[in-house]
């Protein structure tokens, strides 16, 4: 450990612990937009629709705030910012539970293209995503729900003018509405991390069947996609695909961790506010130590998870060598914190917190689905140990 500890200390000098004033202003702008566009009445309206988002809001967040391209380099039509700004956007989305194809398009698909694509592919694919003109997603895990890319079974068979995909992808975020699909598949006869590739194809291509899955969390739609000989183009090269997939997943984990701490903060805020309002036995329930101490513990947990999510984003932004390990750390930390915060928020609300009309369950369900999406906490803890060389 002594060499890596030394590395930690050096990187700690570079990794920032505070947001800059510009970043705080950016956050404030995103929050204003969300307060305006994504009250829970809108979340509830959109979650009952099949598409699950409001195209006009998506257009506004693209045109006015240029969010989908925030982390895409300027030469590909993006804002040229990095993981920290992406984290800020995700945190605010997590706070408000915005229903929009951001995580799929900006984090997973754009991430995969940036990590795997050739210069030409990046130049051709990214600008449309950056300006919100097209929606895209990454189809990676399969019905078994395993997040280890080595377990991918979908096969890409080479033919005259590219590849043909056969297999089934599941848990594809916004897979039902994406225009562009990026699919992880393997050359026939390979296994593990050998022979993996990323492939792009239009969602309306022949040989594709998409089905919306019934998710516990209706605010983020997921789909199953079957490929039956669908024609696809290789993104980048087969040699580098495994590493690109891994990098994309790690960035996605950091983005999701930031989203989760945003949601956890909402749960804390809601619980604190209710405990100051609700009177039982002639006093605000917030004056009972049982509630007080639960809220103090929630605050501690949320702050700790925030620190992990923020630090992981900052470390990724400066390419600190430890960042992939920290992606696991942040995802594991945020998952448990979010779920506890949501469960405690229901508990503090009492019976009313368990009703459909109370908003808490919307976050609870997001917490629950985020807990397992990209891999559950125990998976990330084990991966963390491996990456730390324990």
């Amino acid at each position: 450990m002594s060499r890596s500890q030394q590395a930690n200390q050096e990187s700690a000098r570079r990794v920032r612990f505070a947001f800059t004033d510009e970043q705080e202003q950016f956050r404030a702008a995103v929050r204003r937009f969300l307060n305006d566009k994504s009250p829970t009445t809108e979340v509830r309206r959109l979650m009952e629709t099949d598409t699950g988002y409001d195209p006009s809001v998506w257009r506004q967040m693209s045109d006015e705030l240029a969010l989908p391209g925030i982390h895409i380099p300027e030469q590909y039509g993006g804002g040229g910012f990095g993981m920290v700004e992406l984290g800020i956007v995700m945190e605010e989305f997590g706070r408000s539970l915005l229903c929009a194809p951001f995580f799929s398009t900006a984090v997973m698909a754009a991430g995969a293209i940036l990590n795997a694509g050739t210069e030409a592919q990046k130049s051709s694919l990214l600008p449309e995503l950056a300006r919100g003109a097209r929606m895209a997603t990454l189809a990676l895990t399969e019905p078994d729900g395993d997040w280890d890319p080595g377990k991918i079974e979908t096969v890409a068979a080479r033919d005259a003018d590219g590849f043909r995909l056969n297999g089934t992808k599941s848990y594809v975020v916004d897979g039902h509405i994406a225009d562009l699909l990026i699919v992880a598949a393997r050359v026939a006869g390979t296994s593990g991390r050998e022979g993996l590739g990323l492939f792009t194809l239009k969602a309306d291509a022949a040989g594709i069947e998409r089905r919306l899955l019934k998710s516990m969390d209706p605010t983020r739609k997921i789909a199953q996609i079957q490929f039956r000989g669908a024609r696809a183009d290789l993104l980048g090269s087969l040699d580098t695909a495994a590493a690109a997939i891994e990098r994309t997943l790690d960035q996605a984990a950091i983005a999701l961790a930031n989203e989760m701490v945003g949601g956890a903060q909402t749960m804390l805020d809601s619980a604190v506010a209710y405990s100051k309002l609700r009177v039982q036995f002639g006093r605000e329930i917030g004056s009972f130590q049982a509630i007080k101490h639960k809220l103090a513990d929630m605050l501690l947990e949320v702050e700790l998870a925030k620190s992990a999510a923020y630090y992981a984003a900052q470390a990724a932004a400066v390419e600190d060598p430890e960042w992939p390990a920290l992606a696991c750390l942040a995802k594991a930390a945020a998952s448990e914190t979010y779920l506890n915060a949501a469960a405690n928020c229901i508990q503090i609300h009492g019976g009313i917190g368990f009703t459909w009309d109370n908003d808490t369950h919307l976050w609870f369900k997001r917490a629950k689905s985020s807990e397992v999406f990209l891999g559950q906490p125990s998976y990330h803890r084990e991966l963390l140990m491996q990456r730390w060389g324990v």
Partner: protein
Amino acid sequence: MSNVSEAEIRAEVREWLKANWNPERSLVEWRNMLADSGWGMPQWPREWYGRGLPVGVARAVEEEFAAIGAVGVAKSGVRLLAAATLLEHASDDIKKRFLRRILTGEDSWCQLFSEPGSGSDLAGATTRADLKGDFWIVNGQKVWTTSAHHADYGILLARTDWDAPKHEGLSFFVIDIRQPGVDVQPLRQMNGHASFNQVFFTDAKVPKENLVGKVNEGWKVAMTTLAHERRGADGLASPSRRGPRVGRIYAEERAELEIANQPYTWYPQRAGRVDLIIERAKETGANRDPNVRQEIARLMILARSAEWTARRARATQQQGRPQGPEGSLGKLAASHVARGCSRVHTMITGTAAMLTGSDGPRDGIIAEILVSVPAVSIAGGTDEIQRNIIAERVLGLPKEPRFDTGPFRNVRRN
């Protein structure tokens, strides 16, 4: 309680059943016979459809019924809580009007205690009853009312004196639910089910003679109901009934139970289904994961220990020794078990834990467990309230300081 008298009673009931039990009777006809003979509620007094037997012996009677598959009096839902409360506190007139039809199952009942503003703090009820001539006029709102939409009558806790201290201004009534001033609305939960109702009262009428106990002494009456509710929650299972269960009476009983159990369809899910854990671990292969194995072990240790604790409490009670603290702990333990189930089911299920309905594992049962578990630590008294009860009543710790004394009118409330 001596063995001799229990044996005698067993012989007597066996003989009576032999002479009278016939599964082709109608349910109501049979239960009227039970009411008349007293065998349906043997521990009740002889003048009120019982035989005045001690509780231990009543259990033997139940066993004799079970042995030949004989149907008992109607016990589902709030019926028996209402009946036990009326038996103890109501006038003979009320008992005469209501008890028999409770036992026969002809009338269905609901409990109107909880309110939006008084959840943990039941005595903070603000639904009011004002005496106008021969009627109490009821206005207000109740909530968490199970099966109100099927009920004929309700037991109602309402405020009748706003200048008395909180617990001393409440009265207890029998109210006819099927009247224009009563509006029953389903209350949808976060798991999609609607097990409960809200009940709105707008100048609903209660005849003067439907007051149970004395005016402003309703809290004491409600305590009886709650004590019976807690005892029911102890989970003293009825002896399982054997036999083929074919005949008219069984069909009628099944229909009755179906309605009564409707609000509870999701309860097995919310309890976390600890019974499924090992099965699921094996079917998914998660039993090969050393971490999952540890978590399963933790959960099963908890669940088995909780079960043994309940049985220990019962065994001690049956031995006639003073009950230890074990009895009060069941609800809190159930809450831990349910949370543990939620955690372990998630670990076992992995990514598929986010799938629900027909897409989800076990046809959505796993997802339903996961979104139902938060109710376990709230419904029927939050974990926090349970801890207060345990600390004050079992451990004898000093009471919470009170801030709700003096005239209720001046007590702070939402």
